[in-house]
């Protein structure tokens, strides 16, 4: 593109709204309006009340989730058994971990506008890093986790520093290439460390007893819940910190940020590293929950899964990432059991083949959401809740579109 007078007009004479736009732009929750048409007084009050309600609801949900292993609730069609059974707890824990992983991806895409295709590298680094350390070094869990985190911080800095030399779609391609190198490395099984295609079983010698075995699934469930809450808190904190504001300002208009003397590159690198570290943390707990590492956790497919979760839930929204992670995990699980069911096996090929491939259905659903529901599930739910104002797409949709536009 050419640089023209229009660029100068924007940057040379900052209009009255230029300082405020960063503030209003990136609330992931309900009260957003990227395009700055808020009526300040009333909106703030209402948003304040709404936020309080939302946090209250969030807190209640956490308490309820915390109590689930002690309760005997059944959700036929969603959970394999009552909530206290290990099977259900395992699935719920997986939902929460995926929600947390999706949140870490939201850090990149929703906050900083970075479309990474290599996020699985950090998740996988958490999974494999911890697995390999526990397998080879005789140290307890916490130091092993600390060591893994250290490695991930270095890795994320190196890869981020190089990848952020380009932006937009080239950035996506480059992060994919780096993640692929990680995936190939794991597949090669260097020195027998990663177990190659077979994966690596979790070495339990140095783990505390309460995290080992099916009987302790509920402890792992609580751990997963804790990780979700922690990741949510950190993402919220970063998003509302000065760095988060600058990051979203960079996302919207990098030139403007550069003009006021800040370094977009460093801010983006910071968000990239924090996102990577959070993903690796989730990966470590994933390892404990699954009692093993499998190559899929470093694959490009897994990054794409995270992307699908975030988009399904609603781009640019933390709750969207959570909802997307949970929804995707449950749906994937249900579709897999549907694929193996008798009802499907009896259908003619034209129906049987597509329906017995969960990823075909998820991929198609994803395309439909991108085309017709750009605000994702949370956007659609809010619109529905607001009473379906005819013809109005809703600000979540606009916000999601804007976030995606900014990533280009």
């Amino acid at each position: 593109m050419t640089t023209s007078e229009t660029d100068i007009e924007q940057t040379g004479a900052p209009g009255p709204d230029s300082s405020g736009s960063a503030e209003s732009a990136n609330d992931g929750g309900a009260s957003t309006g990227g395009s700055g048409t808020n009526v300040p007084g009333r909106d703030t009050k209402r948003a304040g009340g709404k936020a309080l309600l939302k946090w209250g609801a969030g807190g209640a949900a956490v308490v309820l989730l915390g109590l689930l292993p002690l309760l005997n609730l059944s959700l036929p069609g969603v959970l394999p058994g009552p909530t206290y059974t290990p099977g259900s707890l395992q699935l719920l824990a997986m939902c929460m971990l995926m929600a947390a992983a999706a949140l870490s991806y939201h850090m990149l895409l929703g906050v900083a506008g970075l479309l990474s295709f290599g996020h699985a590298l950090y998740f996988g680094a958490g999974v494999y890093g911890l697995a390999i350390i526990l397998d080879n070094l005789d140290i307890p869990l916490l130091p092993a986790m600390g060591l893994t985190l250290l490695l991930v911080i270095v890795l994320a800095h190196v890869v981020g520093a190089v990848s952020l030399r380009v932006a937009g779609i080239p950035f996506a391609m480059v992060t994919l290439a780096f993640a692929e190198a990680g995936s190939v490395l794991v597949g090669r099984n260097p020195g027998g460390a990663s177990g190659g295609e077979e994966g690596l079983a979790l070495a339990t010698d140095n783990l505390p007893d309460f995290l080992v075995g099916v009987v302790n699934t509920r402890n792992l469930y609580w751990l997963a819940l804790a990780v979700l809450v922690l990741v949510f808190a950190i993402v919220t904190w970063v998003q509302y910190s000065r760095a988060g504001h600058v990051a979203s300002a960079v996302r919207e208009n990098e030139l403007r940020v550069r003009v006021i003397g800040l370094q977009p590159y460093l801010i983006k690198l910071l968000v990239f590293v924090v996102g990577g570290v959070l993903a690796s943390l989730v990966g470590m707990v994933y390892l404990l929950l699954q009692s093993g590492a499998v190559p899929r956790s470093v694959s490009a497919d897994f990054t794409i899964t995270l992307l699908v979760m975030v988009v399904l839930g609603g781009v640019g929204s933390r709750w969207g990432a959570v909802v997307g992670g949970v929804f995707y995990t449950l749906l994937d699980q249900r579709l897999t059991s549907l694929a193996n069911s008798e009802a499907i096996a009896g259908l003619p090929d034209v129906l049987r083949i597509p329906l017995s491939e969960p990823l075909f259905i998820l991929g198609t659903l994803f395309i439909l959401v991108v085309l017709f529901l750009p605000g994702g599930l949370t956007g659609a739910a809010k619109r529905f809740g607001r009473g379906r104002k005819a013809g109005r797409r809703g600000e979540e949709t606009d916000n999601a579109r804007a976030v995606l536009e900014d990533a280009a």
Partner: protein
Amino acid sequence: MSTVVLLFVTGLGLGALYFLVASGLSLSYGLMGVLNFAHGSFLTLGAFAGWEVARRTGADSWWTFLLSILIGAAVGALFAAFTELVLIRRLYERHIEQVLITVGLSLATVALFEGIWGTDPVFIDGPAWFSQTTSLLGAQIPNDRFISIIAAALVLLGMVLFLKRTRYGMIIRAGVENRSMVTALGIDVRKAFTLVFTIGGAAAGLGGVLASHYFGYVSPLLGGSLLIFAFIVTVIGGLGSLTGAAVASVVVALLQQFANFYLFGTGDFVVVIALALVLLFRPSGLLGRKS
């Protein structure tokens, strides 16, 4: 010496495949900013179509091979045109959403291919000549390498002629440089884009048939694994540059072959390191526009 020759020709053959995938990717990004994740699926479908043709008409005849190449290219082109007209066009200028659509398409189609043809690789045969070798400077070179190289060279020549000699080619070259100015001359760039996308799909479909002979099998994951290297090639070559894609295809494939042989199978990593170096010192790629 003979090892070097063998590695060199084999590398060229692999580079030829990279080019067939990367050329379409690079041009469609250069013209419209569209990154096509489903490009690998065009290749895979082309490969399976070629295999189905060979299976039905007797795999060892040259006519079958030529027919399978034509069908593979045609299937790739049709799939691409469909993708552009039905999915991508409606998200005109929304680049990230376009990428997301192609990601979804790639997920769905790979799963569908697995449903239809199974997850295991399907081994294929070509004319008997393919599995023989030709002696070149003391090296015994599998003949299928030559086929890829010749095909890619012809495709490159065809694309260059198209870009240089036709009005659409002129529109595409101008559009890669400055799309909005082309529209400001009263030209509907989207038509040219549909054409570019379709040609890219044909090249990928053709590449799929050739890749299945090069590797000796077809699998639903064939396209995806080549696609990642094609991404690396397009970034190293410079997005939007056909010549860049050609040069980078050869460089990347040769690096990979030689590193795999002389540096203990580290070809894939050497390629990623090369990518990092290019990004550090020349982020716009070898022959890309400086932005």
